[in-house]
């Protein structure tokens, strides 16, 4: 995640569905970070309209939070990735616009010159994506850890504290 010229402010994006248990960890984290960071950051809770995301993230510094499922990591592990450099798994569903996922958005963004300047991803390895509004306890714990990592990351990369905590 090297330094590149930063237009203010950061765009903080969550992906995921809060009605799908651990898949809601992105929106959960976004809400908490909104409380912590206030107006120093812009927020986008994306329900999956990747075309909208392509339009919004162009030429921005983007920090994206999402749930992931991987058997190569333990549940609750927080994985940070450089979305513009590190490979991401393609969407498992290729049958409709709903199956147009983050990896496809990045590929499309490269092709049509619609990429963010930087795309720092914080993904939380999850276990339960069934219907429901509750996060698994392990995932909640990981989300709190990710929250601190993201606040530190945004502050460090921006070159100073931007926190306007209302807590």
């Amino acid at each position, binding site marked *: 995640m090297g330094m590149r010229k930063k237009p203010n402010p950061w765009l903080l994006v969550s992906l995921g569905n809060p009605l799908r248990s651990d898949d809601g960890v992105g929106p959960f984290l976004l809400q908490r970070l909104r409380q912590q960071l206030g107006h120093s950051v812009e927020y986008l809770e994306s329900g999956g309209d990747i*075309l909208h995301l392509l339009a919004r993230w162009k030429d921005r510094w983007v920090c994206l939070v999402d749930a992931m499922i991987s058997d190569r990591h333990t549940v609750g592990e927080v994985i940070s990735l450089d979305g513009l450099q590190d490979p991401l798994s393609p969407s498992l569903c*290729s049958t409709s616009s709903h199956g*147009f996922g983050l990896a496809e958005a990045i590929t499309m963004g490269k092709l049509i010159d619609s990429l963010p300047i930087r795309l720092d991803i914080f993904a939380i390895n999850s276990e339960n994506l069934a219907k429901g509004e509750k996060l698994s306890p392990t995932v909640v714990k990981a989300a709190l850890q990710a929250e601190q990592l993201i606040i530190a990351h945004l502050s460090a990369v921006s070159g100073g504290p931007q926190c306007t905590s209302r807590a």
Partner: protein
Amino acid sequence: MAAQRKTIKVDYLARVEGEGALHIDYDDSGIQEVKLKIFEPPRFFEALLAGRSYLEAPDITARICGICPVAYQMSAVHAMEDALGIKPTGALRELRRLLYCGEWIESHMLHISMLHASDFLGYPNAVAMAKDHPKVVKNALEIKKAGNALVRLIGGREVHPINVRVGGFYKAPSTNALLSLQQQLEAARSLAEQLVCWSATLPFPDYEWRGEDLYEFVALKHPEEYPMNEGRITSSRGLDISSQEYENHFVEEHVAYSTALHCTLKARGSYLVGPIARFNLNYEKLSPRVRQLAETLNFKAPCINPFQSILVRSLEVLYAFDEALRIIGDYVMPEEPHLHTKPRAASGYAATEAPRGLLYHRYDIDKTGKISAAKIVAPTSQNQKTIEDDLRLMLPRFMHFPEDKLRGLCERAIRNYDPCISCSTHFLQLHFNDGNAEKT
């Protein structure tokens, strides 16, 4: 000797909204059976509405679809207003039309750029197409962005808008807020014009509906405008009815292999709704600039090649920009954002033109405004049988194709209709058997 029977199976249709499959049996004598199998689970929206306030109908039904929520909101509010005996006019009416323009742009552009265009150029998907045609995809996203901006401003957000209510809106946008979109809309209109010209150059399969194969086109018709929110339900074979009469002429039925109902015209069978039907029945109501461009491209109604639906959609996008700019230019903010509403025991009916075609709603409400019954007929339910008929008619002409090419052509033929399977599976029909007689 019996003819050798062959089967085309597509277990999971690609690049359609929702989950469906296709099964076709054929032999040397022709097509024996076509089944568009929709296996997405039913979603019980009509039952969810029972017992809820008439004011909640637009927000509940909007959840049927993330691509055309405005259509559900529009049919719901018009039906409720029919029940209440009120009719928003002037700026409120125009704002609704403007909101619909935004949704047509969003929905059509999603289908054109992400799901359909790659069919004509031999790419498996939009990402692959973007490698060779980045400008087309980039422009398409810019056009869609302008539609998003319209829906966001009037509806409060881009998906599942929250500002629509029975009688009008919760809040009307200011004149300046609408004027602030003008520049973006004009720039996107210019891109949409290029898109129409590009769509016209696509290689369309040589297939046309002719003679007895020509479907009955069904769409709203309004004396003064290209239909969106209002008009009589008309057809190319002389149907001309009000929304109140819809259920006297159209009937829904279950088929064993689909969780979506099939809707047919009584005694006449399948029919076609959607952009081609609208275009064919309302061509003269398009803006002069759109008609002029269509004629320059030597493309006029009636459109009888279903593969050209992409060109019709792109013309409708262009029309939506013309109409949006006209409405914004004339707009004066209404004094009140909505009419006063007072519930009464009544039934209300409405049909509007969703991007994919006619969308019918009927509600019964009691004197307190609680919904006691609801019926919703989505465009994809109405086109399902036509899609099957289309495959039945089309395939004999392409039987010389190798099997994989034939399978691909079948999928393309389905995508011509931009089916939204998630919309079509909203129904609820329970069968009870108490041991004496079956009740529905």
